[in-house]
């Protein structure tokens, strides 16, 4: 199904403040599909300063970790949509909740 995401035309993006936890981030970063993450951040105007590929030895790069922390945990799309880059299918995001329900006949 969706292997990557692209958020276009996000109508409402919210930024909050979350405690910075580098140990947590170091473990989460390897799980990210980095190119999807990068594209998503860029598409909502928060891609500044984020490298296109994960830097090696990011564990000690606090600047990098803080950038990831900010986008991953502090920036949220409240209203917008997710668009599948393969099918073009749109999944709306309302009140911060993506709707990825399928139709009856697809189940």
């Amino acid at each position, binding site marked *: *199904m969706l292997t990557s995401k692209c958020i276009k035309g996000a109508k409402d993006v919210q930024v909050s403040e979350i405690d910075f936890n580098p140990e947590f981030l170091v473990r989460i970063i390897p799980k990210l599909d980095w190119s999807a993450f990068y594209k998503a951040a860029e598409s909502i105007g928060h891609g500044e300063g984020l490298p296109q590929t994960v830097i090696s030895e990011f564990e000690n790069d606090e600047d990098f970790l803080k950038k990831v922390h900010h986008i991953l945990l502090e920036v949220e799309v409240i209203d917008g949509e997710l668009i599948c880059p393969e099918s073009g299918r749109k999944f709306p995001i309302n009140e911060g909740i993506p709707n990825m329900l399928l139709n009856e006949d697809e189940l």
Partner: protein
Amino acid sequence: EEREGVGLNPPPFLPTSVTALVLVHPTGTKPLSSRLQQSSIFYCENSALDHAATEAGPSNTVYEEIADHFSDTRHKPWPNVLSFVQSLPPGALLVDVGCGNGKYFGHNSAIYEVGCDSSFGLAQVCRERGFQVFNCNCLALPLRSGIADGCISIAVIHHLATKERRSRALREIVRTLRFGGKALIYVWAKDQERHKNKSAYLKQDRKNRRAEVLEGFQNNNQPSYARELSCVINKTDTTVENAACSKRTNIDPDNSPNIYSDNPGNLSFPSIPIHTNRTQFQHQDVLVPWKLKPVKESKTDEKVQTFYRFYHVFEEGELEQLCHDIPECQVTKSYYDQGNWCIVVEKIQVENTCILLPVQYTNQDYNHDLPFIGTLVQHKSDALYNAATE
């Protein structure tokens, strides 16, 4: 008009999209009166009902109290589930499939938690509480394969109407796990009393039941959650619920009133008994009544609404058996907990994998990474199932 039921062998499967049922009075052979049939009697295990209910269902008013058998399970997390969540290592990704109001979130600050539920109303509750959540069907998780370190699915798959769908939900969970990742699954047990200990569900009585307030349910999206999963009946008659016995009755489809003008074809309708709350289950497939009472501030003529939610309650070993048919799924723990059958499964690598492309399969193109091993029989039955449904 009330008609007499005639004996009928139930069909070998339940149509699983929108299924229209004629409800029967549990103690009799007669279908419910036409007054009820004129209202939106739809049974549907999933959110398609929301559309149907919106057309014919009750007005949108604010409901505050939820029926009783949803009491403690709605607010008190099961301790064994909590310890599973807390056992996940730092940096783990936990997916809660069917997370409801998010009561299993926030107990392990070292992990990343995300939940999904088919209900928008409940997802809103999770958001209000600061948790990450999205809407989806548990039969089609929009998650990358192998991404989850842990998964919980508590009291979810027992709402699915067929074995094939319950199996599919488990497969989706296993697909989402990484190798070595673990999932904890809870389903309602048919046997609510084990070794002479009654479950908390059975022990509730009228005096002990508290008025339950589902947090955050104070908005006009109600009762979409109930509509999604339940049969909606505009009902003032409480006799159906108070019936002592939930004996299954049969209906002759040729003589049954055709409730819906868009009733598809000549499907015979199985009858599903209505369970009497706080009693032992008499059948595995039941409709459990769920009362919604209006808030005090609303009009005094607001009726008590009763919803009927489908449950398939599990026999001992049944959940494990479902897992045995899933190649990468290994049961590592199995237990009974307060009226639930519970398992922990681990995703393992399977040797000698081969992929048998099925002749006909459902629309699950995204499952190509799931190895099919010796499951030609399953594919055949899927093909038959699809043909029969059409």
